[in-house]
């Protein structure tokens, strides 16, 4: 009986130790998600125009999580994939008013408000997705100086990255916009920032 008692006590000790270890690891994992979203920079001031002719400025980033991408409507390779990925995310976070999507054209001479309006109908199902156009130089400045993305040889040379901007207008993380696995990462990061 003494032998059995010792074994029971030992087993109990091992299980409690594993429990503590698991608790520590889970806690570390949860904290690491937030640590992995450091404030990279604060987005610069900008003023562009939405496809409905309404002004859209950096002030409208405050209070919401924003996903930003640069596209152009006649692009046949990366842009449709990027917009599809935005579309998936828009559907999945449909019920939240704390998330918005921003697609900025890098070909404003072609992508007028009307063109963007038509383009939006192919992808967007809610008014939390803005398709912005404006002065090309301002768009280049926003990409290069505000978001540290390449914007040379436009329109084809635009960056295919998504940028996650938090409720305070801070850039928190970049993702490869054409990579489907980014959707999974973005979802997790949005949930982490919403819980924060």
């Amino acid at each position, binding site marked *: 009986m003494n032998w*059995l008692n010792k074994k029971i006590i030992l087993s109990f000790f091992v299980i409690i130790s*594993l*429990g503590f270890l*698991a*608790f520590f*690891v*889970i806690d*570390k*994992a*949860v*904290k*690491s*998600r937030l*640590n*992995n979203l*450091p404030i990279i920079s604060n987005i610069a001031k900008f003023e562009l125009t939405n496809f409905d002719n309404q002004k859209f400025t950096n002030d409208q980033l405050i209070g919401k999580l924003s996903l930003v991408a640069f596209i152009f409507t006649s692009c046949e390779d990366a842009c449709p994939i990027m917009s599809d990925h935005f579309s998936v995310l828009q559907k*999945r*976070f449909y*019920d*939240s008013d704390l998330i918005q999507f921003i697609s900025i054209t890098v070909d404003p001479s072609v992508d007028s408000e009307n063109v963007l309006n038509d383009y939006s109908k192919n992808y967007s199902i809610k008014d939390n997705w803005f398709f912005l156009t404006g002065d090309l130089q301002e768009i280049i400045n926003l990409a290069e100086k505000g978001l540290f993305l390449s914007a040379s040889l436009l329109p084809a040379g635009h960056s295919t990255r998504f940028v996650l901007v938090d409720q305070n207008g801070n850039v928190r*993380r*970049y*993702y490869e916009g054409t990579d*489907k*696995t980014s959707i*999974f*990462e973005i*979802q*997790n990061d*949005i*949930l982490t920032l919403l819980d924060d």
Partner: protein
Amino acid sequence: MNIRLFFRSALLSTILAYLLIFIGGLVRVSGAGMGCPNWPKCGDNWIPPTNVDLEQFNLTLAWIEFINRSFGAILGISIIVLCFLSVKYFYSDKRILSISFLSLFLVIANGVVGGALVWTNLNPFIKTFHMILALALVSSLSFLTVEAYKILSVNKFAHRPSSNINKKIIFIFAICIIIEILLGTGIRTNIEIIQIEFPLLDKSEQLDSIPFYKYFHTFMGFTLLFLSFYLYKIFSNHSLKIIKSLNIFILCMITVQILLGELLVFSELPQLARLFHTWGSSWLVGISVIYYNLVDYELA
């Protein structure tokens, strides 16, 4: 014939397999499955990078996943040793020989399925398959351990078959455990699909979205509790001490599992309870194999 060495090797592999299931469960509940974004390497190297590239890596998650993979490799080596010993000492015993190599196949196959998990960005169905292969592995390793134990104790044990009905009840008990685990993994898979498609749903809404079979999981839990009481009763006077200990273990484990299951529902799926609920179910699989293979023996 050095049977003791084979027994120790089988026992070590079994313990390592259980620890690996625990670590695998920890990877799942901590969300570290994609900690290493590729497989078999972790980034450009075999070990997680030390220079932090936040876009590519969450180092904490990478190390959790890396420890899981490393432990899998250690288990693989342990089973290779087991196979070597089985060839050396059990060349004529085709059953032990084949189950040893089956274990090796299972551990390698499960490693590759782990890779497929990463390639498919943690497909919930492949996750479930990964778990089922792990359960098959602990079953085969538990079988080898108990067979070696029986050969070691050949002078102490005598083969006295239990009644057919009792044997059948143990068999039904084991089948019920497998069904129960499949139901549980079904619920988990369903929740994960719901979490991907509807990330904003809270935990209780996720549970509400699961079809009626979730109630069958609870019903089966209580059926198992009843069966374990019955086994406890019919084998309470068994001459083997290990059978009596297993009786108590099974009864306690099923009670704990029911409590953990309720905790999962009513405390909004706490990760620690989820981990032990999964791990406990794997214990019941291995213990059923040992129980079934020992119950026909008595003290000589």
